[in-house]
């Protein structure tokens, strides 16, 4: 898989994640009814774990996805490293929030599960992108090198 394909896939996933997070921010700000298959979204979104230092977790997610989306458009090493670090950090925080939902709140928000899946995929792609960028291009391997 080429780095270009990985960047494209990451951008698409980040856009989808931003859509999920943006929807949750919109519901929070407008007070609209939250579509929820598990029935636990309202409890989770109104819990005190739905904010970090006064900032809604959904808004943090939206910002995070936009950072990941932006990093997909830059080809430098800094962008690759930042993308991987942010994605892995998000996976760590998502895992903690999943624990909070299951063990402390006792309800699960399906939008959070979708976001968890997206951010995990992005982290995997970001690590793969690092690996691909590190590998020498195939054309640079001469027959003598592999002998």
């Amino acid at each position, binding site marked *: 898989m080429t780095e270009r394909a990985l960047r494209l896939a990451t951008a698409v996933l980040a856009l989808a994640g931003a859509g999920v997070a943006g929807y949750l921010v919109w519901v929070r700000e407008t007070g609209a009814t939250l579509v929820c298959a598990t029935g636990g979204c309202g409890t989770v979104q109104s819990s005190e774990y739905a904010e970090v230092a006064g900032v809604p977790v959904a808004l943090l997610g939206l910002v995070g996805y936009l950072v990941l989306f932006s990093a997909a458009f830059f080809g430098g090493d800094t962008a690759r490293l930042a993308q991987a*670090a942010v994605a892995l*950090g998000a996976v760590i925080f998502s895992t903690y*929030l999943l624990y*909070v939902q299951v063990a*402390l709140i*006792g309800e699960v928000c399906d939008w959070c599960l979708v976001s968890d899946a997206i951010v995990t995929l992005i982290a995997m792609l970001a690590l793969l992108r690092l690996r691909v960028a590190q590998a020498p291009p195939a054309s640079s391997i001469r027959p003598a090198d592999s002998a």
Partner: protein
Amino acid sequence: MSSRRRLAAVLVGALVLGGSLIGASRLGAEEGAASPSEPLPSILDGIPQSGNALGSPKAPVTLVEYADLQCPYCAEWTHRAFPPLVDRYVRRGRVRIVFRGLAFLGPDSDRALRTAVAAGRENRLWNVVEGIYQRQGHENSRWVTEALLAEVAGPRAVASRNAPWVVAAMADSSRAARMAGIAGTPAFQIGKTGERLQTLPLSSLGPEGIQPAIEATLAS
């Protein structure tokens, strides 16, 4: 930069980011727990609570109350008999009361009880029970609203009311009621603390319905 150093940089960055967010989240949750909704002045002020128990753990007599938070007779008992009982026995360290909540009257019972049990982890179950009885509505008229629960219990208890440990505590109370042969509420068991409890026939919903049994157990 070597691939090992790049990976290390990514991991450090991820741990700093994830760890900071988790730390801030936990700090916010703990602050929320430390400042629940401002409690009203209550007859319970100054009395120790631990989970579902009210009063000193060293009290010589334990009284177990089985109640449904929608049950009007339970509310009446709480209004009439509970305050003098608290002043005369619990505040003085002579009786410890354990709340065993049941939810057989309907969905409002269940929602109210879950929240009260959840508040037990903050040692505020009795405050929530008192607050709910003060606001009791018609049976299953959906009077147990989110606003009511947030007002009497605070956001942390409301948020954790469906947690597995709440469900387990409720099941434990139901099991205890079955084993005690409890058929209606309010119902009581009484005994020396740490010893076998006896089911108490309740002759009245006023203090006179329970004081003789408490005095007899204290004297035994």
